[in-house]
């Protein structure tokens, strides 16, 4: 089992690399597409438009779309999760991957970014009432793929899942021992 972490030059990858390694999986950082991994993780920090433009380099966009359509596992984290959707109000000309339908919206709270620990609302026992660490100003208010949510001025999706595509709006790599369990479960099979 080999994890490939996509390096889009958007933030420090050290915590994510260490987290996947600490869950016991061999981890490689990919600056260019590679078939030689079992699961792809796409972290992202900063603006939606910037990360979206990074996807246009090195043929990442087409590679990821093919990767997913072939049934391989793909995980987006933070802005990486937002990129799974079509668009964002943060940069409305930028194109997401469109793997999920919807537009990312600004959180309706006087103070953004949202920073800190929040309890997940979910019908699934593994996620229900668990605390995870958020740092974000935008989110997807609702999605048919939403499997866990939190509130910050408005409800938004914390975890989305559609077949082999998974997204975390929060930082599992910064969410303590539970975050590591969550990551391990996400990377499995």
């Amino acid at each position, binding site marked *: 089992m080999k994890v490939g972490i996509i390096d889009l030059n958007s933030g420090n990858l050290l*915590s994510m690399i260490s*987290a996947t390694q600490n869950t016991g999986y061999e981890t490689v950082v990919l600056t260019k597409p590679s078939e030689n991994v079992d699961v792809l993780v796409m972290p992202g920090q900063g603006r939606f438009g910037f990360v979206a433009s990074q996807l246009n380099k090195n043929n990442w966009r087409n590679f990821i779309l093919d990767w997913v359509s072939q049934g391989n596992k793909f995980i987006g984290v933070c802005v990486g999760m937002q990129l799974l959707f079509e668009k964002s109000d943060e940069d409305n000309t930028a194109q997401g991957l469109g793997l999920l339908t919807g537009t990312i919206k600004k959180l309706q*709270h006087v103070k953004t*970014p949202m920073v800190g620990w*929040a309890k997940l609302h979910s019908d699934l026992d593994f996620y229900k009432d668990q*605390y995870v660490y958020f740092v974000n100003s935008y989110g997807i208010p609702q999605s048919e793929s939403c499997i866990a949510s939190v509130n*910050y001025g408005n409800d938004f999706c914390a975890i989305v899942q559609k077949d082999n595509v998974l997204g975390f709006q929060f930082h599992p790599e910064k969410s*303590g*021992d*539970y975050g590591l369990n969550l990551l391990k479960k996400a990377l499995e099979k």
Partner: protein
Amino acid sequence: MSKLFQDTSLVPRLIACMDVAYGRVVKGTNFKQLKDMGDPIELGLEYQHQGVDELVFLDIKASVDKQESALELVNKVAKTLSIPFTVGGGLKQLSDVDKFFNAGADKVTLNTAAVENPELINQIANKHGSQSLIVAVDVNLESNGELVLYTHGGSKRVKTKYNEWMTEVINRGAGEIMINAMHKDGTGSGFDLELLSEREYSVPIIASGGAKQPNDFLEAINAGADAVLAAGIFHRGEYSISQVKNYLIQNQIQMRTI
């Protein structure tokens, strides 16, 4: 309670602070009487397992030539721990700060450098985002009843007025402010509740200085603190992180549980 928790799922945070010198966690009222409290990584891991929400590492012996060892520690913390952590001590310019973020820090904290070069607050906020910066404010209630700002680890009086400084720090882009009430530090008489409740701030406030027992944390949160920070009470083993959290939860404060 802070307004930050209205209409959100966010919960108040419990933060453990470690003063680090020569790669060890220390505690002392002055530099000559530093007491060894253990290894920062081991202690950090223990606190993480007990459910601490964040850690702060302050290199109290920091200087430019010592930065290498501090960066090494930050890198090791980032690789070992899986909770957010802040580093501070001796940061003077943006290039220092960049190095710490590259080494894996989630946030940095400024004190003296912010007062001496307030523009640095704007620079960090613009480059790394407000969420990455905590400005620490050392304030002392003088015998004449005046609140006076201090820098250089509490050794240098500053002319800037406390209230004006708090406003300026927020306007320049600090993501959080840590209020360290020097007159409470080491006294064990609790956090300064008046400082926490006298004003409503638009950024999270971290209460620091004076915690001796779980009830002090409760009072600080009820007075308006968004996060509570302590050091010695945990390092000396007087109370564990989980004991403090359990006490808060029993008293109707929602805290992260693990």
